[in-house]
Structures are given as C-alpha cells and as structure tokens.
C-alpha cells in the first residue's frame, strides 16, 4: 500500500521517538516491561489505523514490551462491544476512536464501560475538559469543513453560505446522505450563528436544504465515495471529513478546504468492562495522550490532536489541516450528541422522506 522505503524510514524515526518517550514517561509503564502482555484494541480501519499503529502501538510496544493488537471494526461498534461484554468473551480490552455518541449509547444501555480514573494524571490535565469525561478521553478530533476543487473556482468558496450560493459559485455539489452535520450546514448557510445552531430549527434547516436540493448531484454514504466524486470531477464541492480530502490532496488531487463553521466531533479511548488488563489499558491511554504521540498521528492523517501541546511537534503548515487549530476552533462547533441522541429518530424519518420527495 505504501512505499517501502518511506515506511522503513518513518518506522526508524518513530522508534527513536518512542524511546525518547519512554525516558520522559512516568514509571508506571516501565515496570510492566518485563511481562509479555498484549492488549486488544478496537481500531478503525484504513490510514487512521496505520497512523495509530505507527504513532501509538509500535512505540508503546517498543517502550513496554506489551503488544497492541488492533481489531478493526465498522464505524460505531456499539453492538459488538455490548456482545463482547455481555458474553464475557473478552475479545477486546478497550476501544480507540469511539465517537461520543457511541459512548453515550453504551452508558445509556447498561454497564459496559469502566471509569478510567485518570483525571488527576498530569498528561490528562493537559487536555481540555471538553474532550473528556469519567469513562472516556478524547485522543483525536475529526471535522467536516467544505472540500472544493481549487481548479474550478477563481474565487474559492469560503463557507457554507458560499456552498449554498449556486449563482456565485456554479458547479455540481454532493452532500452526505445523513441528517447529522447536513442540517447544521443548512442552518449555517441560512445565516444562523454558531452559538444558535442547537437546538436545531428543523423547519428552517429543511427549508434551507430545499434551496440546494436540485443542485446536489449525489448524496454520498461513505467518505471515500465523496472523494471519488470530487477527484473524478463528478462534483466540485462536497462537505466531508477533513482527513479524506487531505489524504487525497497529498496524493496530488487539486482539493482545498474551507474551514469556516466546520463541524467537529471527538474520537475517544474507553475501557471495556470485564477486561483483565485494566491497568495496562490505563498505561496505554496515558502513553498515547502525550502531545508528542498525538502529533505523530496528526502528521500522518488529518486527525487533530486533543492535547494542545501536540502543536509544538507539528509544522504550522500541517496545522492548517487539523481541526483543533485555534484558528478553526473559533467559528467551528462540536456536534451536539445530546441533541442528536434525543431527536435523531424523528429527524431521520423526516430527512429520509425529504430525500425521496
């Protein structure tokens, strides 16, 4: 998949980084080094998993001798986690990159997660409170800015208003076939201020969507589809998670991002009930939350660090594609999973009906 020479080099640099991390780290994990342990961590697929492997899993093993086994699964593995915990099969010890919504669902449905009890650790304190709770700690931020083709616009679109303005910005558009983020975008386009987005004014949002509907050539269901659409020239603008267009642009696709009013969410670590490796999980989480480690992910894929110290290890140029860049945080909003948890069914019905009509 990747160039061997390059990966060999990056692997060596990572190992150097890892040993440096081990020296600087508290003694909590050096003691475990002698044991031959392994941790099974639910991991998303694709380049994000690759990046996490290089920035987190391999250095952790180098530092502690504990092997991290990635278990890849679909986007929201709530049902898997429930089944694993209920059956006490211990297939996974913990999960990475779980959305806030999944954590909320698991907490609501029963006793599936463990409190991590790490709030007083120094490295955790570095992370803004907004990114964590007593069951889960955010380790990455994903965001939806507007992706557009640089070669198609003399004057590039800057925000969602431009995205909805078919006269000033002619071109074909695609949107996500899902109300989450789509309705927020519709409201931004209609001039709603970030602080007033939630609770969503549904009537206003759908009315706003009505305007753009005839100009949406396709409603995507997977982000790669969105990238296919825009790189093949099928469409010229699409809102999609930033790590996908960033990767495509690195490969030479003429894509650019407009970050105003981006909508972001948090990827979190959480520990599953019933694991026999609770301490090791905690040790692993602390290791990964270090700014330098998070920067390791952010350098490879456009998943932004939750630890602000990470930006010390990231070039300013790279920081332009990361959502936690302070410049983007000002106008962006986090998806309000509480609102969505309460209203998603009714909204999904309405959205699907609207789509078909």
């Amino acid at each position, binding site marked *: 998949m990747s160039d061997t020479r390059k990966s060999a080099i990056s692997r060596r640099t990572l190992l150097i980084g890892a040993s440096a991390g081990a020296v600087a780290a508290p003694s909590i994990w050096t003691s475990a080094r002698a044991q031959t342990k392994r941790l099974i961590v639910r991991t998303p697929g694709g380049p994000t998993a690759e990046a996490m492997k290089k920035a987190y899993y391999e250095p952790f093993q180098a530092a502690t001798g504990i092997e991290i086994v990635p278990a890849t699964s679909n986007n929201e593995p709530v*049902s898997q986690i429930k089944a694993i915990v209920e059956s006490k099969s211990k297939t996974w010890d913990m999960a990475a990159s779980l959305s806030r919504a999944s954590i909320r669902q698991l907490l609501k449905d029963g006793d599936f997660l463990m409190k991590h009890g790490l709030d007083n650790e120094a490295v955790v304190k570095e992370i803004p409170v907004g990114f964590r709770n007593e069951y889960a700690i955010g380790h990455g931020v994903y965001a939806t800015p507007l992706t557009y083709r640089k070669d198609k616009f003399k004057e590039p679109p800057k925000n969602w208003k431009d995205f909805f303005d078919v006269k000033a910005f002619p071109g074909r558009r695609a949107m996500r076939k899902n109300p989450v983020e789509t309705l927020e975008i519709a409201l931004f386009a209609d001039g709603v201020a970030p602080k007033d987005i939630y609770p969503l004014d549904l009537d206003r949002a759908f009315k706003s969507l009505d305007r753009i509907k005839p100009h949406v050539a396709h409603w995507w*269901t997977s982000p790669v589809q969105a990238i296919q659409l825009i790189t093949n020239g099928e469409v010229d603008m699409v809102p999609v998670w930033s790590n996908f267009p960033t990767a495509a642009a690195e490969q030479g696709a003429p894509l650019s991002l407009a970050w105003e009013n981006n909508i972001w969410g948090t990827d979190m670590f959480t520990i599953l009930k019933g694991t026999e490796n609770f301490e090791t999980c905690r040790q692993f989480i602390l290791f990964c939350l270090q700014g330098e480690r998070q920067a390791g992910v952010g350098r490879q894929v456009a998943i932004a660090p939750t630890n602000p110290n990470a930006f010390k290890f990231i070039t300013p140029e790279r920081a332009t594609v990361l959502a936690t860049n302070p410049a983007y945080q000002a106008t962006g909003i986090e998806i309000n999973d509480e609102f969505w948890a309460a209203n998603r069914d009714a909204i999904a019905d309405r959205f699907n009906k609207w*789509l*078909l009509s």
Partner: protein
Amino acid sequence: MSLAASSRGAGRPSRLRQFTGRWGKLAPVLFFLLLLILYPVGKLLSLSFQGPGGVFSLQAYERLFASSVYVQVMVVTLKISFWTTLATVVISYPVARAIARLPGATRNRLMFWVQLSFWCSFLIRTFGWMVLLNRNGFISQTLQYLQIVDGPIDLLYSAPSVIVGMTHAMVPLCILTMVPVMEGIDENLSKAGMTLGGRPGSVFWRVYFPLSLPGVTAGALLVFITSLGFFIVPAFLGSRHETMITQLIIEQVQEYLNWGFAGALSLLLLVAALVIFTIYDRLLGISTLTGSSDRGVKAGAGPGWAGLIGLKICAGLGHVSDMLFSAIDRIFGNRGAGKPRRSGAGLEWAVVLAILAFLILPALIMVPVSFTAGSRINWPPEGFSLRWYQGLLDSPVWLQAATRSVIVALGAATLAMLIGTPAAFAIARQKLPGRTLILALVLSPLIIPRMVIAVALFYFYAQIGLVGSYAGLIVGHAVLAIPYVVITVMAVLKSYDTRYDQAAWNLGARPTQTLRFITLPLIKGGLISAFLFALITSFDELTIALFVTGGLTTTLPKQMWDDAINVATPILAAASTLLLVFVAVITLLIHRLQTKEQK
C-alpha cells in the same frame, strides 16, 4: 417375495427406520439453520418489540407506520428488485440457452467468461461501473471522443444505473441456475415442433420456453430475493431516490445505533419477501424449485387458470415473434426455398457476445486502471507504473487475507454441500409434511438481510467463543451458501430420471453404491455448479466477515472493503486484476483436467 425367509426382507421396516429414513437427510440442515439462523435472528428481531428498559412495546412499529417514508422505501426496493429480476432473466436466458446447446469446447469457453465475471468481487464490479459510467468516465469520454455527444453525460446516479449494476451482479448466478435445466431439454422436441409446422418463434415459446420454465423461475426467485438485500450498489450508483430498505437498516445499525428500529425494518423486509414468495408460489408454483414436476406440468396445460393464461401468453408471444422474424426476412429479402437461410445463429451469437462483454467489462476496465501512476481509480489512467502491484505484494495483510479467503471458501463450500445436498434429495424426492415450511427455512438465509444475520451471528458467536475463529467464519458462510446448494441440486434432480437408480438397485447396488456410482456421477454438473455457488458466496462475502471476525482477522473482501471505504486507491484495481488472472488460470486448469480425463 423370494426374500421372505431372510430376516431383513421379511417384516415391515420399523417405525424408527421409517422416521430416520424420512428425516435423516434433513436433520443436519434443520439443526444447522434453526441454531444459526432462526434462534439468533429471532432473538435479535425480538429487540424490535422492546421499549426503553426492555419491556414489551410497539414503539418501533408505531414509528414505522407513522411516517410514509418506510413504506415508500419498501416500494422502491420492490420496484428496483423487480426490474433487476426482469433484466437479469432476459439477459441470462440467451447465454444459458447457448451454453446448454453448444458442444463441449465452445460451451466451456462461454462458461469460462461467465464464471470469470462471477468470481470478481461485487465491490470491484461496482467500482468498475463507476469508472465506466462516471461523468468523466470511460463511456462518457469515448462518446465525446467519437463526437456522438458534445459534453460529459450523466449516466450514474439514477434508477437505470442501479439496475444495471445489480443486474450485472446477478446475471452469472441466474445463468448458472438455468443451464442445468436447459441441458435436460431434448433438442428433438424443438425439431419436432418445426416439422409440425411451428415457426421458430412459436416453437420457442410453445415448446422450449415452457420446458425451460423451471430454470427461469428458480433463477428469477433467487435473483429477486437476493436483490431485496442489496445496499452497496444503490449507495454507490443510485441517486437519492434509489434508497433501498437494507440501506436504512444499516444506517440504523451503524449510525443511529437503534437496534430495535433496525429489527422492525428487517421484519418489514422479511414480511415483504414472504409475501412475494407466497404470490410467486401461487402463480408459478414453488414446486418449480422442489423438483416435483407434477404441478409444473399441470400449469402448462391442465385446468389451472394460471397455466391456461401462461399458454395463451406463450402462444401470443410466439405469434408476435413469428411475425417479427418474417418481417425481418422480408426486409432483408431473406426468403424463399432456393437459397441458404442466413440462419438466426449469427444474430444469436451477436447477442450472446454482447452480453458477455457486458459481464466482463467492469472487471476488465480495472486492468488498465491498476497500472496507473496516479493514486485514484479513474479514467483514463495517469501514466504507467507498477506501484500498486508492489504495494499489494509487499503487504502481508493482503496475502494473508487472500489465503484465509481461499481456506474459508473451500471449507464453507464443502460444509454447505455436505449439509445441503442430502436436504435437496429429501425435499425433492420424499413426501414430507410441511414441505413448503421446510423450504422456507432453507431459503431463509437468502430472505433475511445479511446485515441482520451478521449481527445475530456475532451475538451468538460471542457467547460460544467463536468470534474471530476460522470455524466461525466457515460455519457462517456455509449458512449463506446452503440455499444456493439446495436450489441448484433440486433443479438438477428434477430432470433426473429415477429409473437409473431403480436399475442400479436391481443390478444389486446398495443405496450408497447407487448414489456413488450412478446418481452422483449423473448429476455431477449440477453438483459442480452448486459447489461453485457455495465457493463464490463465501469468497465474495463481506457482511458476515465484517462482524464475526471480530476485527481480529481479515478476508479478501473485507480487506478490499477496508481499502474501498477508507482510501479507495488503485490497489483495489491491482487486487482485482491479480484475482482475475488467478481465477482465469484456475478455471483453465480445471478445463484442461476435464478434457484430459475425457481422453
């Protein structure tokens, strides 16, 4: 009864023997499906009757009917499946007929191309269609180059493109279902029809077509039911109007985490499938699947109103095609007894070759794409490089996934054959109480959406520790393959003359010997098709693999899916091309072995 004195032939068989004789062949399939389908799925669907806190509630169903959207989506699903089925049958028929009638070598060559397209992952084929139909894709660019159109044309994201994609996925299955039945039709019957004054059109519609109907209906039913569960093709090739019910189920599972409502939607789909199944049974007779020919025959000529209507329709079609042909003959001056007829064979070949091109094109288009120097799957490829092949071969993950897929597919196909073949014999030949019910159970893995089976199996496996194991994956895939095995084997048994068995018994062969030396060799073609179906079902299976591997191991489709949803690099095209070469080599090798054996 000269055996009267001997102990075994003297008395009536004991009740136990009768019982095991009747149910012995069915027991494995019943046990297997009850345990691995009905129990887990039932448990999962029961979630739809649970409100908050686990108490009984009809909330999910209230929601289902409160908004018209779900019924609307169901209607869309049925419509798309209907058109897909119709298109598939129409396209498959000429190819199946050609394969059934052609002599050895040509037949094998045709079969080769059909199987080649069958073996290509549906995921790759879907990407192939995107490359072909895209605004700036192969067809659009070719038409622009030829100056037939003067700008990019929109071919994607419409109902027709979804139907094209789904039909393409279904045609090989349909062809392989029809062929064994068509092979059983005596060619002399058509000749007799012609000497009795029937023109080719009439002879085809009144004689050949009714006789091939069991194959057509079996193929159509398989295609229709499989079509109901499609979600990737409409997602990739459809517009907002082509939303199918399984997409909504997956959306509920993956994005809204609402199992109860997903269960309710699954039940809606299940009910719709069962209703179709019943209507189908009433109109065409499920016996077309079960191998008992009585009803099928009656439908052709007896007092049944459906049969009479069918006959009239066939007669009408025959008349129309006769007029059409004679009109064509007149236009081309192709009439008169004095000169050789430019027989319809040329036209027939043109049609068959066009269909084969349609089948293979989406996979072939990936070959040039795989050599691109760029990093996107698009047309035309940007430059030339082998970087994606290098990436593929350097990655142990891809190689492991491929090996695992082969092992799992072989295991699952063998298991499905061992369980499915006896069941097919029992259903086709024995008088069984509740046969329709048994058949419905056997077909249930087709009717129940895969996503539902996948999650149900995952729950079940987690309890018994099968998650992430080879055994779990093999068993899961075998469950999916059983219906294909049973239907295919039953279809060949229908045209099998049981007098051969009687002759063998009479010649002193025990039942097992009869099976080994007479029955199985005679139905070998059907068994091989069944095995191939099972093999491909497993080899190309994604949904179950996504869940029951627990994310710890990966199969080839899962690896492709991973790539497709996360990066969609031309490594997919490279994998597809290697797969194409691999399958081609294997298929050719098998053909070579077969011809050697014949010599």
